[in-house]
């Protein structure tokens, strides 16, 4: 704690550039939250311990910032040297005094009227590097803003939004690069992951997530289906400085709910990709769901953890299985159901769950668990190195999938099927689950009143924070899952919490409803 206070005192006086070295060594400055997941490993764990099990009952709201936006607020704020950077719908971005919530600057992009967002006009946050803030836009541009003023520094076109491309992802800054993955799996785009020079906006590499003719994996697509194969990459990956590898997950093949016409595994949809950070060259891939027909994007944060002397990736996948992968080799170590699943009852030679013959959608409709929204979705999980547990928001919900063929037309929705709530299904249930990654076993679970879209944060104070659909922000005992504090924010949570420190005081922040909330000790 002494180190923390000294560090904060220093940082408040000197505005320092956010260098790549600082991002690599983010553990040395726990008062700052400098990347989407708080560090490169994706753990969303804060080493701050001022707010702890013994005093969390006294936590109070410190400030609220109203964004004025409507819809789902999915942003993860960043905090550096007492300034909080966040986003809201329609590509709003803003910087706030993190002690008071008072804005320093606000930016809102002039979006064209015919953008094609999939699932709300949402954004999950910015990246910071040097003195710049980076934002992916709903019209498929990548832009850089001046961190002190919000002034636009550069603006590059990544793709033509009229064909269904957009960005909702929070970018990842690595070395001198800004890495983004594209959205558009509902429009039959051809997915990609891009890296831009943070100084100029020049594109340094692009990895097409659907391989073209002559490239490995191309044979996993029937005919010309690869051209509209989807495999977007709309959630933020992680980075391993030791091997200079980016781990980035991909989403559904298109059309999302109809496999006919795209026979094959449909690489690299629903996969984890290990990329060389300098070149974007793929070192290995692991495909979670082959030939997906249920919209089970694998776009969950691939969390880097080390256990039993092994360097691992843990990912709670939308398809209902919790995967542990050796991140050195890309080989599967284990896959364990962590929610209600009916689509798979056996595993292949590698140990990967494979679909049974009752999984494919039919014209009359077929009930499958999990449903199209998945056991989890984009909501960020956390790994707490103190409890060695992985915490994730989960839901049990089954849907009836019914085919509805439609032709591909550029820029038009391209699903190929409809899904309905299952008539026979039990009521939907939502949980916060604590999973032991070494065994896949669920250590504890807390049942929410209804399923939530909130991410999860763990802290060194022995706490796990998450929000619910009823508007509560809740602190749990990380060891037992018992709720130990809550505050009613008045709007449902679709975002993930963070922790930060200013002037020696710890704060916890989260977006809910149309606002950003910060909490602290009285």
């Amino acid at each position, binding site marked *: 704690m002494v180190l923390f206070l000294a560090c904060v005192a220093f940082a408040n006086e000197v505005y320092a550039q956010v260098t790549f070295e600082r991002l690599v060594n983010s553990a040395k400055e726990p008062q700052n939250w400098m990347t989407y997941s708080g560090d490169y490993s994706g753990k969303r764990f804060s080493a701050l311990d001022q707010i702890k099990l013994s005093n969390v009952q006294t936590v109070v709201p410190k400030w609220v910032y109203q964004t004025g936006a409507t819809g789902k607020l999915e942003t993860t704020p960043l905090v550096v040297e007492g300034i909080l950077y966040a986003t809201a719908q329609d590509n709003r971005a803003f910087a706030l005094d993190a002690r008071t919530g008072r804005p320093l600057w606000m930016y809102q992009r002039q979006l064209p009227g015919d953008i094609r967002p999939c699932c709300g006009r949402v954004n999950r946050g910015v990246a910071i590097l040097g003195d710049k803030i980076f934002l992916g836009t709903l019209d498929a541009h990548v832009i850089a803003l001046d961190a002190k003023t919000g002034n636009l520094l550069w603006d590059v076109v990544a793709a033509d939004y009229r064909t269904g491309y957009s960005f909702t992802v929070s970018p990842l800054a690595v070395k001198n690069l800004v890495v983004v993955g594209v959205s558009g799996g509902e429009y039959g785009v051809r997915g990609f992951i891009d890296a831009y020079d943070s100084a100029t906006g020049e594109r340094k590499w692009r990895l097409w997530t659907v391989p073209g003719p002559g490239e490995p994996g191309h044979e996993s697509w029937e005919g010309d289906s690869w051209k509209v194969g989807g495999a977007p990459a709309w959630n933020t990956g992680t980075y391993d400085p030791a091997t200079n590898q980016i781990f980035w997950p991909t989403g559904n093949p298109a059309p999302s709910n109809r496999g006919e016409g795209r026979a094959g595994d449909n690489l690299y949809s629903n996969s984890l990709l290990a990329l060389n950070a300098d070149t974007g060259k793929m070192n290995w891939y692991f495909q979670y769901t082959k030939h997906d027909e249920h919209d089970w994007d694998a776009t969950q944060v691939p969390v880097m953890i080390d256990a039993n002397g092994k360097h691992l990736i843990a990912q709670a996948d939308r398809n209902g299985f919790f995967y542990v992968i050796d991140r050195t080799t890309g080989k599967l170590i284990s896959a364990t159901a962590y929610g209600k699943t009916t689509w798979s009852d056996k595993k292949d030679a590698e140990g990967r769950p494979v679909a049974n013959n009752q999984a494919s959608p039919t014209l009359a409709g077929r009930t499958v668990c999990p449903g199209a929204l998945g056991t989890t979705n984009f909501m960020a999980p956390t790994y707490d190195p103190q409890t060695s547990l992985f915490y994730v928001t989960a839901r049990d919900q089954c849907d009836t999938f019914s085919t509805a063929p439609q032709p591909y037309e550029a820029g038009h929705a391209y699903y190929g099927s409809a899904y309905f709530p299952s008539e026979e299904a039990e009521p939907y249930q939502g949980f916060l689950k604590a999973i032991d990654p070494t065994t896949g076993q669920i250590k504890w679970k807390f049942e*929410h009143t209804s399923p939530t879209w909130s991410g999860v944060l763990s802290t060194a104070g022995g706490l796990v924070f998450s929000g*619910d659909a009823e508007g509560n922000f809740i602190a749990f005992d990380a060891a037992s899952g018992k709720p130990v504090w809550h505050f009613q924010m008045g709007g449902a949570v679709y975002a993930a919490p963070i922790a930060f420190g200013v002037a020696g005081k710890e704060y916890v922040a989260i977006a809910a409803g149309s606002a950003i909330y910060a909490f602290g000790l009285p």
Partner: protein
Amino acid sequence: MFREHPSRTLNHRLPGRANSAVTRLTMLTVTPMIVLTMIMLSRVTLAFASDERNPLAGDAKSAKAGEYQFRINCALCHGLGAHGGGRGPDLTRAHKKHTHSDAEMFQVISNGIPGTAMPANGTNGQGVGMTDKEIWQIIAYIRSQELKAPSKPAGNTSHGKELFYGDANCSLCHMVEGKGGRLGPDLTAVGGSRTREAIIDSVRNPSRRLAWGLTEATKEFPQEYQSVTVVTADGKQIKGVTLNEDSFSVQVMDTTEQIHLLEKDKLRSFEKSRQSAMPKYGPDLLSDKDLEDIVAYLTTVGAK
């Protein structure tokens, strides 16, 4: 001008939720259904004046394409064959409550119906909006399915009203046009927004699908009419339905219509049930003919 999320400010109980009507829904249509302030005229409605006819009218191929669009975008509430479901009205009716002309239908699909569960195109937060062409295809499909003349309610409306307020005891718990009880959903609009089959099913099997109550602006799932029994710290038992609930508090209306605002951790016990507070009206309690009369009454009121 662009489409934005629907304003999510509706915080009262939606009218016309039959005590059957709804099962749980996917994200596809839940919170987003509430469309309030969004009656901004979009470029779409400007382009099609009220006397516009469907450019695809009568084209069988368009109607077929519309059937698939309907499955993807509409069937969740209106049923696979447009015959209505637990949530949405039967669109094969010759007379629809909100739309008559093709242009009106286009307007409703584009902008939704404020204060009802009908969302504006592309605003449900999950999935993407339809193009103009796809909307016209859907209208072509609906026209291909609808009856040419209105069907008269089979039952006797005035007898249905007598039963509703009399021997059948419906009004003990349900209001129609401001008269009746509060424990169950207001049924004034139910006849206009639910199918005959859905209403009958909700009377015969009230627990099969619980009715929806409060729909909160940003929340994915609405509150259901769940039955609840609590025992307070001082040993008092309260039985009723949940007006709302979260992990820490519950708001209950008891069987005498008293509201109780309760903190869960202060209760001696708290039990919820998906067994509806409404009794199951089998044919022994309510004959098919009498039920048909009640449906006729509700349909007549709901058509107003």
